[in-house]
């Protein structure tokens, strides 16, 4: 029996995920990773490079089905909107057609989501004429356009210069306020984690597990420099424990 609100919760359980090395040796990557995400919540998974963050996202997105566990997306929204580390736009389609490809052909919805990411003037532009920052925004728009049950983002702001990254983080904060998507965001940048998260999960060890959890009460849009510094300090203390 589902209680009220149960269908509004995303439950991800990875009991065991292993990789087989070329030599035939089996290496465990993730073990007993459990994530419960509430509707509209922004959960950041923090971990160092190569700790299994992208693997986790690929399991959730259904790109890799070779694991023990379960993924329940609930009944809200349309599947997974994946924002990859690289934009992965189809270069032979215009920005607008890239959005159209993954979703319905609702012109208004496409226009409004492109407007939201600041690409209102780039409907007919081909992706390789966009800067990396713009292409990343287009990829975000594509994921938002399908109205996903869960928006997953794999370090979408790496290898941008700091100014662009800050601007995109602010843009994302605005979009999170406006659309209230349910988000799983993966990063190895602590500043980014405390800026965006409602809750941070720290992935550690080999095989990786959720080692610590930190919940933030101040809403994202009113977090000033002192609050962020305090959050970052708390996160660091947890990490060094």
């Amino acid at each position, binding site marked *: 029996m589902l209680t009220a609100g149960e269908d509004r919760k995303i439950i991800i359980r990875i009991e065991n995920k292993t990789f087989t090395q070329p030599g035939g040796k089996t290496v465990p990557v993730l073990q007993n990773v459990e994530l419960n995400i509430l509707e509209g919540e922004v959960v950041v998974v923090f971990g160092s490079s190569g700790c299994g963050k992208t693997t986790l996202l690929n399991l959730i997105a259904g790109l890799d089905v070779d694991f023990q566990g379960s993924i329940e997306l609930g009944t809200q929204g349309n599947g997974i909107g*994946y924002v990859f580390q690289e934009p992965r736009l189809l270069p032979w389609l215009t920005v607008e057609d890239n959005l159209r490809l993954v979703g319905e052909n609702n012109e208004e919805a496409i226009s409004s989501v492109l407007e939201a990411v600041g690409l209102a003037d780039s409907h007919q532009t081909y992706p390789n004429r966009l800067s990396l920052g713009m292409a990343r925004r287009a990829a975000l728009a594509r994921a938002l356009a399908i109205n996903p049950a869960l928006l997953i983002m794999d370090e979408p702001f790496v290898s941008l210069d700091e100014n662009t990254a800050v601007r995109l983080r602010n843009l994302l904060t605005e979009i999170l306020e406006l659309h209230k998507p349910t988000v799983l965001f993966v990063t190895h940048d602590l500043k980014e984690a405390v800026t965006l998260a409602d809750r941070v999960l720290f992935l550690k060890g080999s095989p990786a597990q959720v080692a610590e959890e930190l919940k933030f009460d101040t809403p994202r849009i009113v977090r000033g420099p002192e609050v962020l510094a305090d959050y970052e300090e708390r996160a660091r203390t947890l990490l060094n424990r």
Partner: protein
Amino acid sequence: MTDTSTLTRLALQGGSIVILLGLWAMGAMVADSTLLPTPLEVFTGMAKEANQGELLHHLGVTLMRVGAAFFISFIIGTAIGITMGRSKLLNTVFDPWLVLFLNIPALVTIILAYVWFGLIEAAAIFAVSLNKIPNVAITMREGARTLDKDLMEMAASFRLDRKKTLTKVILPQLYPYMAASARSGLALIWKIVLVVELLGRSNGIGFQLHLYFQLFDVTMILAYAFAFIIVIQTIELMVLQPVERHVNRWRR
């Protein structure tokens, strides 16, 4: 490319064609024989045959055969190539077949097709297609092997259906390979079609070449050959190149 460099290129290539025609004309004048006509005689003969004779009829018939064989080999070869490029197992199992068919001389397939199926149109088209399918398959297999894994993952994560994945994600990555096999295909196929016509058809350029060979009429042999070269070059310029430009319009 800038406009001036295009003009320079056209001037150079035009000049080079004029020089070739000049060499030919000089040779013909020195030889002074009906066995080596001048370019002018060839092109006058071509114009006369086009106006009063059967050149256009035979040209049309040959073009239809080229077209039919082209589309059949292109579609079947593409399907085989993509399948083998995507599946390691199928590729391992059927690679020897491909090598075998690739190395069967065109003449052998043509003779066998006529022997087995009779001197009919279908046998002719079949023989030509069979010669070209392995070439297309090999080119397309290379293309399918280089498909971008990232984009395939993107398509899978957004749950694109098979049709969208094929037409919007896979095929556009293969367009350059398709263009390459279309061009080399056209060049190869029309030459094989002429042999097919010479051996077992009663119309088409190949049949006419055979006829004029028996009459030792070199002027008309060259007239027919050049007429078809002009047609093929026109297709290349007016169809293949514009299509290629269109599918590559997104490139910088």
